[in-house]
């Protein structure tokens, strides 16, 4: 579904991505792990066209490197950013509405589905997004992206700043999404949920993929964990 080959990216002068290769297959949850600042978010942004990518990015057998991000999104690639980017002045409902792309009828998700999944959001449907709690904002961001009916969602640190019970909730949601046939590329720092729900994991360090394997492989690989993940 998604094939990234030899991806490089720069922020100004700094060479952030130094040749990243990764794949996501249909219906698969893949995690991209690593410490802060190693280039995980940049990888996603480069795929999304927010950072200018160099190298090859193929999505549904189409080269998307160099396309504008709205065009990439329209191909069915969804992106849930780390800092959530809730539109603070818009209500929850309006935030969700903006997730939709025009008038595609046969979307997998309706607003009703979202409210069913998260009754909290229904309660807050008409309050401005800016006043939601962190957890609610995270839910909203995710739902907003789903409203656009993507085939692959890239989720950047969804559990960041969430209380433990909410982290569980996020994990459930991700499973639920994957259950509907979507692929997920999950960027995480916490191993907990990543290892629980992922089919495969990548570990990044200094702009490169330094490990690729199943969650079990990673659990057993003490040295990778020591060097690239733990404190």
């Amino acid at each position: 579904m998604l094939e990234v080959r030899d991806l490089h990216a720069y922020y100004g002068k700094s060479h952030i991505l130094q040749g990243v290769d990764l794949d996501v297959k249909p219906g698969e949850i893949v995690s991209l792990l690593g410490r802060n600042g190693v280039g995980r978010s940049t990888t996603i942004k480069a795929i999304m066209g927010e950072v200018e990518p160099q190298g090859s990015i193929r999505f549904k057998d189409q080269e998307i490197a160099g396309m504008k991000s709205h065009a990439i999104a329209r191909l069915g690639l969804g992106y849930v950013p780390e800092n959530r980017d809730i539109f603070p002045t818009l209500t929850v409902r309006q935030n969700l509405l903006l997730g939709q792309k025009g008038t595609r009828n046969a979307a997998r998700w309706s607003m009703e589905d979202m409210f069913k999944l998260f009754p909290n959001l229904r309660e807050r449907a008409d309050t401005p997004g800016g006043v939601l709690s962190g957890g609610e904002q995270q839910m909203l961001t995710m739902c907003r992206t789903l409203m656009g009916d993507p085939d692959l969602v890239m989720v950047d640190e969804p559990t960041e700043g969430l209380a433990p019970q909410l982290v569980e909730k996020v994990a459930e949601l991700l499973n639920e999404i994957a259950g509907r046939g979507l692929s997920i590329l999950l960027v995480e720092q916490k191993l907990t949920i990543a290892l629980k729900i992922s089919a495969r994991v990548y570990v990044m360090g200094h702009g490169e993929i330094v490990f690729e394997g199943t969650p079990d492989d990673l659990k057993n690989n003490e040295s990778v964990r020591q060097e690239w993940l733990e404190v």
Partner: protein
Amino acid sequence: MSTTAIELRSVHKNFGATEIIRGVDLAIEQAKIHAIIGPNGAGKSTLFNLMTGLHPLTAGSIHLKGREISSQAPYDIARAGLARSFQVTNIFANMSVFENIRCGMMWDRGYKYSFWRFAGRQRDLTENCEAILQQTGLTSRRNVPAGLLSYSDQRALEIAITLASGADVILLDEPTAGMSRSETTQAVDLIRAVSDNKTLVIVEHDMGVVFDLADTISVLVYGEIIASGAPEEIRGDPKVREAYLGAEVD
């Protein structure tokens, strides 16, 4: 003489309704390297911004060498002897490397707003700048416009400007962000080289760097210091592991 270089007393900071810093007490000893780590969004940069006067405090107080600096203007704090570098490179892009450093130095050497003497003729400025160029390894780049430097050189310049101010308390915000491994090593060497007799406060994500450099480490999570101590203590602290890796990893 107090051995505390900078002290935070129950510092709070709210942005609108959101509480970013929820009561931080921190005492940083003089002539030590003190690292602050923590997950994204924990409030590390905000803490720096509070210490350097970019934002006013909501509550609490900050003292620099025993003198209260809470909510003072950034330039007053800078004049009091506290300098900082930035996470995102923040230099004078159109000026040469030399001039960047000279600008960083002028207030401290008493040139202030003077418009009746040539900067280029002041030997003390020039000599000191050369010394800092030497120290930070930028001598060969002396006349290059800063905007055209390589990224790691820009980061070095970032530190050089901070040094030039002559401050003895220096805050470094992610000095190795975005660097490759070899560049990171160079940066660590540089920081160690300049840290003589200076108090350094470092925010850093690269644990290698942190454990390499720091005398003391504080862990900031959700606007609170959950642990503070020597590197080995921190490494073993279960709360820290939880904050970084999630609750139930084994």
